[in-house]
């Protein structure tokens, strides 16, 4: 297995505050864009494997006192379309500590107007993907 950066498209491919599903070496990955920040995570909910790319992406409400709703984490939360589990797309942790399961996330970088995702995959799969680099950011 090797870790490589892969170009997944121009910035213009990814709408602000939206989700785009891409495939990397047979792996389904969701790219989320909040303003000019990008996040990438697996398209499979750790709960029961629902497609997170069909979920709701945006903010959430944070723990506070009883009867208090605090707006927070804009652009950091994906809600599963099936059972509404929430995940922090920047850390992979569940929101509110509802489970110890983690959502696999991937490093994302923007270089020269293109979006790159760093994933681990078998060498033959990586070669087939024609990665821009091997182990280092482009």
């Amino acid at each position, binding site marked *: 297995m090797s870790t490589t950066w892969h170009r997944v498209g121009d910035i213009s491919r990814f709408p602000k505050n939206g989700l785009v599903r891409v495939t990397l070496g047979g792996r389904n990955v969701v790219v989320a864009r909040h303003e000019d920040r990008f996040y990438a995570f697996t398209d499979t909910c750790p*709960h029961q494997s629902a497609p997170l790319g069909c979920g709701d992406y945006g903010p*959430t*409400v*944070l*723990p*506070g*006192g*009883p*009867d*208090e*709703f*605090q707006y927070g984490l804009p652009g950091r939360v994906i*809600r599963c379309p099936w*059972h*509404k*589990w*929430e995940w922090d797309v920047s850390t992979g942790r*569940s*929101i*509110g*500590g*509802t*489970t110890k399961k983690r959502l696999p996330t991937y490093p994302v970088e923007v270089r020269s107007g293109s979006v790159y995702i760093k994933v681990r995959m078998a060498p033959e799969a990586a070669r087939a993907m024609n990665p821009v680099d091997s182990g280092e950011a482009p």
Partner: protein
Amino acid sequence: MTGGGVDYDVHFTVDSVADLFPYIPEAWQYRFSISDFQLVWDGGSLVDDAASSRASIRAGGTPVAAEERLLVPVQMARMSVWSDHAMAAVLCSAMNDHMATTASRYDGMRMCATVDILDPAEAVRELERVGGRYPIGAVLVPPRGTILLGDPYYHPVFEAAVDLGVPIIVHPSGAEGAYFGGPTLGVGPVRSSYLRGTVQYQVAESNLFDLVFSGTFERYRQLCIIFAHWGYRWVPPAFWRMESEWRAFRLEAPWLTRSPWEYLAGNVRLACAEALHTEQGVEPSPYERVWEGLDPLLLGTGVGLEG
């Protein structure tokens, strides 16, 4: 099972309101004497053949050592279907005074204070009156039909109980699903005690859910609620469901900083005679195994003691 040899559910009853007259102002005595009001308890009590002894009590034919007993004035649990808050206040005070007199005759006897839940402010006043005077071991709070226990309506009473350092007891009244104003059941109005007894756990279930989801245990972290006489086998599957829904709808109750199971372990106890069986080494059911380590059960025999 926790509780340290305490029986948390000894049913304290009186034959009639007249038994409380020594503690009731004369005008109210007359008021009761011309009315047909009765204190009712038809929920059943186990026969205690040694109620005056602290050595043992018999429940289901099995002797159980109880070092301390808590008198629960079960007739007052029906307060939720009463309509006169002034009358409720008078009866609460009288019942507390009468229980205190009875408790003073025995060793290891404490009383579950009854307060006017139709008027929370009055309830707090009564709790302040009896708190420093009598051996209070808990406070009886009958849930009202349309106001679940997670509602702010009960906050003054919960706050007073926490200040006093005693738990809240929630006990069936026999009015569940049968009287207007009483706690409602999922089956609607019931036509038999058989049906009521079968489904009355729903009252405890819905109130327990409401207590957790409302954040009441976040607001009052020292609050302890004892559900007495509601059984306990319904709790594990109910909490499994609750945990599942919490993960899905955390957004609607973001103030919950712990899982429902943790609130159960930290703030809730279930007093029931069935706890005897777990104590006596009977093989636990699959339901009981689910919560091994949480240990939320208390002994509550439902033995009767007439005052």
